[in-house]
């Protein structure tokens, strides 16, 4: 704490000074406190982890489609390795891809720019946050190579499997996994405090609460949700760590502990967590939809209040993950009702997007395609959630591939589609160059079509009774016949992964030779488009910090010559 307090006080001086006589060379990047630099660090670390997670998916999908085959670039997958791959794939995609990219990267990049500030309120805490995050990245990667191998007890890490090494056989890997997750939480806690304080305290003069772009609101609401939900999980993680390392019995029923307790602590965090990543993606999509429909956002306030309502409700649904964990059926009923209730605000978010599109002057470029596909694909995820939320149906569906397909239809739109939407939309601002639209569209279709081809078969498999986390389905005669679906999913995955090369090629090509972007290539209203691309240190010249005169979505205002009206123009 002393640390934070010192930090707060010292921020006062010379944040500008370090640009001139701070460290030089590579250290300049590592020790930078510039929010844009930290955002880039989060973005590229997150993308790198995305490649790692994607590679893992490729390896275990190969094992499922062609059991026992020697997987190119990996080799034969043993049962223990299979478990480790699945576990770490899930953990990495949620904690080291979705969180750093959607919250930390976009939050860091966009919040100060969108509210007309020169940096975060606590730049050095911000840097500390990334450094802790980086340690957690190294920790989780290292955990895959220690003796016994990486942790294989699922991303939910249920005890007693996760607590006792005679069951999980990965005493070091399990502990490193847990420490890595805990460090990651600390990093986002620091980041979250920064986002919230910055949005509340550092807005440009004239920017009232309802003039803040939706994406900034969403990232901040998500940070609040994260901060309110993560405490109990940290408590649980400490308890689990003690169970693993010093032999306490918090979760060991033989010694008076309670394994279900972990499930409550985990899902009390786990469910809000899915909205923590959902809301920033929704915000990104909303901003893009409004810009490229050239229409005023339908229901700005509805949107904000809906997000808050979703956040509040998300604290009362967690036990829908535990319907068959032996919870009281009366309690299951209550959680069924709250779960079905939460789909109302979620539907509202989608309706706001659709209503904004209605009658708009829609431009179908790459960012807009991503945004539209978010609406379509997330809808499938949300609708299948309703089946799972009904406890009666869930008793059959729980822990089948239906659940797996459900949450991939939510997480993929969020973490992958949302990221690509945001990345292609803000690329001109971040790097000063336009992206190649044709390559962008090839990449788009090459991702979206295989994505559906992967997970639609998995819905079918789940309904057919195929359970998750099984190494080789050939051992189950009644499931073996469905093998063609598994092969289809795996082949589609490989095609999708290969199409990502188009994306990386597009990035490099556009970065080196793309057309100059200028300040405002999309003719958008929000403040980040009023400065240079890429923005200089401090974002605006000292004597020309922006002032705000109106809300962010004044497009196609009748009687105005231009179809947009930047927030900083007096008239």
């Amino acid at each position, binding site marked *: 704490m002393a640390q934070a307090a010192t930090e*707060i006080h010292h921020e006062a001086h010379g944040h500008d000074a370090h640009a001139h006589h701070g460290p030089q060379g590579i250290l300049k990047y590592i020790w930078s406190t510039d929010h844009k630099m930290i955002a880039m660090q989060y973005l590229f670390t997150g993308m790198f982890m995305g490649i790692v997670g994607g590679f893992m998916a490729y390896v275990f999908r190969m094992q499922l489609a062609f059991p026992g085959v020697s997987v190119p670039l990996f080799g034969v997958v043993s049962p223990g390795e299979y478990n480790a791959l699945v576990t770490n794939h899930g953990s990495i995609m949620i904690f080291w891809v979705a969180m750093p990219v959607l919250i930390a990267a976009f939050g860091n990049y966009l919040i100060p720019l969108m509210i007309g*500030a020169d940096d975060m309120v606590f730049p050095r805490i911000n840097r500390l946050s990334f450094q802790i995050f980086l340690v957690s990245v190294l920790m989780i990667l290292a955990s895959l190579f220690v003796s016994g191998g990486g942790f294989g007890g699922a991303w939910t890490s249920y005890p007693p499997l996760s607590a006792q090494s005679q069951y999980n056989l990965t005493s070091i890997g399990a502990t490193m996994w847990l420490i890595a997750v805990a460090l990651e939480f600390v990093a986002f806690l620091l980041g979250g405090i920064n986002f919230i304080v910055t949005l509340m305290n550092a807005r440009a003069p004239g920017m009232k609460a309802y003039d803040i772009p939706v994406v900034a609101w969403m990232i901040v609401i998500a940070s609040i949700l994260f901060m309110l939900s993560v405490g109990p999980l940290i408590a*649980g993680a400490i308890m689990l760590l003690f169970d693993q390392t010093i032999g306490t019995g918090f979760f060991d029923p033989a010694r008076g502990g309670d394994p279900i*307790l972990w499930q409550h602590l985990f899902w009390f965090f786990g469910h809000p967590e899915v909205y923590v990543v959902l809301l920033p993606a929704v915000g990104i999509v909303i901003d893009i939809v409004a810009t490229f429909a050239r229409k005023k956002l339908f229901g700005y306030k509805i949107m904000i209040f809906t997000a808050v309502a979703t956040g509040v409700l998300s604290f009362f649904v967690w036990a829908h993950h535990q319907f068959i964990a032996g919870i009281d059926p009366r309690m299951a009923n209550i959680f069924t009702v709250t779960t079905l209730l939460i789909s109302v605000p979620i539907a509202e978010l989608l309706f706001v997007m659709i209503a904004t599109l209605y009658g708009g002057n829609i431009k179908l470029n790459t960012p807009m395609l991503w945004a539209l596909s978010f609406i379509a694909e997330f809808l499938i995820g949300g609708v299948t959630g309703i089946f799972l939320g009904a406890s009666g149906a869930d008793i059959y569906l729980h822990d089948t591939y239906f659940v797996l397909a459900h949450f991939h239809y939510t997480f993929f739109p969020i973490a992958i589609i949302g990221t690509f939407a945001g990345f292609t939309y803000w690329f001109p601002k971040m790097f000063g160059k336009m992206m190649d639209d044709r390559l962008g569209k090839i990449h788009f279709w090459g991702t979206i079509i295989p994505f559906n081809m992967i997970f639609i078969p998995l819905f079918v498999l789940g309904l057919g009774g195929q359970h998750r986390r099984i190494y080789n389905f050939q051992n189950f005669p009644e499931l073996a016949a469905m093998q063609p679906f598994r092969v289809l999913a795996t082949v589609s995955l490989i095609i999708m992964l290969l199409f990502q090369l188009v994306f990386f090629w597009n990035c490099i090509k556009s970065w080196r030779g793309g057309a100059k972007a200028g300040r405002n290539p999309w003719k958008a209203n929000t403040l980040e488009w009023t400065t240079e691309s890429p923005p200089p240190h401090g974002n605006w010249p000292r004597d*020309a910090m922006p002032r705000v005169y109106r809300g962010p979505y004044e497009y196609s205002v009748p009687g105005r010559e231009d179809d947009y009206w930047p927030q900083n123009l007096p008239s």
Partner: protein
Amino acid sequence: METMTLDRPGGDPQGRPMPRQKILPDGVLGMLLFIFTEAMLFAGMISAFVIVKSQAAGQMWPPYGQPRLPAQETAINTAALLLSGIILLFAQYAFKKSETRAVVPFGISIFLGLFFVAFQGVEWAQMLGQGLTMQSSTYGAFFYLIVGTHALHALGALGGMAWACVKLTRGTLTQSAFTTVQLFWYFVVIVWPLLYWKVYL
């Protein structure tokens, strides 16, 4: 906050200063958010404790063969901690009038805080001597977990207060830094009676 980065002058073409409206000073707001998270951490621990306790074999609490916690001695210690919090309020009051007058109450408050932590340490040694360990039962495990977490928070807060006290004697302590430090100590003071009630009684 003398020269906040974001408060710096500049802005519109006339070069008038453009103050940004702050809900609360940055440090104070950040600390409040941090405290909310910490409150949830303790809430998680306490609810876990209550659930495990309610399922104890034969409703025996403490479990068979485990010592009772010294509730009376700790009541005294609780009083010391609460007193420290109250005296800190006086320190704040004095700080508003003159900085030098705040030094004595602030020092007493820190001293009482240290007394509290030391007292807890002695108590831990006693309990360990009586065979209560983290491995001996969930009762012991929760005791050390919850009280230990609180003690770590107390030490962190005391570190912050000591730092603030040094600045105070040098006359460089700002009100918002002082408030930030105070808030964390109040948090430590206020959760303790709850923990005492749940864990000891």
